[in-house]
């Protein structure tokens, strides 16, 4: 318990130290705020311009979450479909790898071409980018389920859906949560990029405009907002993960009689 607290304190100290170092280095070297603003300037901008930043942050969060949610839903369905049979898994895997290794960033212009500038391409990019980690992980989790565990239900004459629900999906949970943490950070990348390229709202757009007017502290403020959002979602999923997949990260406490 003490060791855990100490470790947490060290982590916080490191983060604070990073900002202090940044601040002092900028002051000592006399770096102009057009090149690299000091953290204090960034935070000042963040608070003083918050009414202007807020709608952009909300837009980005909204776009990301909608895209992420749809992407995860599609990903789970596709993953369940592909992972539920060995043949489907072996057949679909090469195509899946092909899709997931294509830089999704490159499809943004295509989405803009199809749907015009605005919220839709951003959501689509976020979907496209968050589907594949989920599909790959869920299908791998299902495909690697121990046949012995499925046999337990098969002798009970369980339906295929029962087996999926009671064995396959719980077994795939650790894989699923690992993919969520990857997917949610990627979804932000997708949204912000699409906003940068073609949108009139969102943090990506705000940073774009701010940089064109050399308002560098505002650019960094946008960056801070993105980092905060990303961290919050990541932590949220980590906590949910602990709740659902505690069995996979067990400690060796054996009870004997």
């Amino acid at each position: 318990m003490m060791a855990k607290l100490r470790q947490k304190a060290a982590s916080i100290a490191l983060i604070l130290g990073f900002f202090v170092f940044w601040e002092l280095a900028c002051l000592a070297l006399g770096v102009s705020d057009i090149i690299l603003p000091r953290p204090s300037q960034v935070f000042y901008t963040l608070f003083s311009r918050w009414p202007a930043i807020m709608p952009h942050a909300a837009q980005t969060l909204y776009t990301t979450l909608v895209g992420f949610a749809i992407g995860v839903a599609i990903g789970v369905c596709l993953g369940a479909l592909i992972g539920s049979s060995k043949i489907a898994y072996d057949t679909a895997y090469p195509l899946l790898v092909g899709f997931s290794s294509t830089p999704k960033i490159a499809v943004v212009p295509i989405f803009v071409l199809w749907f015009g500038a605005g919220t839709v391409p951003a959501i689509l990019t976020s979907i496209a980018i968050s589907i594949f980690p989920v599909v790959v992980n869920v299908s791998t989790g299902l495909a690697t389920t121990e046949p012995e565990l499925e046999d337990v239900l098969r002798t009970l004459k369980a339906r295929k859906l029962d087996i999926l629900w009671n064995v396959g999906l719980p077994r795939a949970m650790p894989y699923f949560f690992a993919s969520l943490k990857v997917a949610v950070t990627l979804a932000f990348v997708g949204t912000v990029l699409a906003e940068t390229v073609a949108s009139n709202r969102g943090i990506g757009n705000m940073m774009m405009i701010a940089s064109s007017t050399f308002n560098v502290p505002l650019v960094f403020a946008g960056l801070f907002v993105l980092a905060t959002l990303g961290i919050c979602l990541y932590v949220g999923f980590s906590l949910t993960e602990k709740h659902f997949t505690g069995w996979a990260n067990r400690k060796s406490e054996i009870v004997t009689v």
Partner: protein
Amino acid sequence: MLRKWAVRHEREQATSVGALATTRSDRGTRDPLIEFESVTLAYGRGESAVRALDKTSIKIGEGDFVALVGPSGCGKSTILKLVGGLISATTGYVFVAGREVGAEDVRIGMAFQNPTLLPWLTVRQNVMLPLKIVQPFRSGWGSKRKTEYRDRAEALLAQVGLSGFGDKHPWQLSGGMQQRASLCRALIHDPTLLLLDEPFGALDQFTREELWAVLQELWLTRKPTVILVTHDLRESAFLANRIVVMSARPGRVLEDETVPFERPRNIAMTYDAAFVALNQRLRSLIVEVRAGSEVSLGAAA
């Protein structure tokens, strides 16, 4: 002994060629619960295929307690998997309750060599799993799982000495305790057919004998049909009504022994002369088959 086996084998081959109807009706009045008709099972295909079972025909009556013994790899577990519908025969037929396996309406409970408890469920949730799947319990799952079903699971856990462990996760239990929980899971839905694949193999002798008594008690009160696969000849003679001795791979039925001892049996009885004699006879039979299979392997090489 070997000549007797050869004759029987020829006869089996002869009947397997004949019509199904004659084979099924020639053995008395009551239809058996389980019937193997000249079942062959090969794992894999072509050159690399391993034949686990060769033209095996077995009948098991309802309410019977049959032990399958034999050398390793003789297809004992394969027979259980066939009855449980986990694999299907390469050739031949497996009937359960007069219908081809899988189509029958028989509640099956199965305990495997490994405990195979689901790691994300607690011990109690694992034991209750069949109630969630199998009718008529399935319909009551929503309303009774916190009351009646829970008590049912606790009662069974207590019977095998696991009261108070219901809320633990399987990995917090020792191997023997996991095996006991798995036995509870095989029994909770009151199966009419119980398939046991060396369920006591990993337990120490005292626990094992304790559980023999539990299983015998259970069989005497509920009269399920039991097929028990075991390496332990004492276990087979203590528990079963019938001992089927299998040959080395590919497995065939070599000997079908009726166990005459009175029920309920107790551990002291296992040191009686008659019991020991039966054990010795079975043992020498299996030793003989094993030796035979080693010789034939040597010849092949």
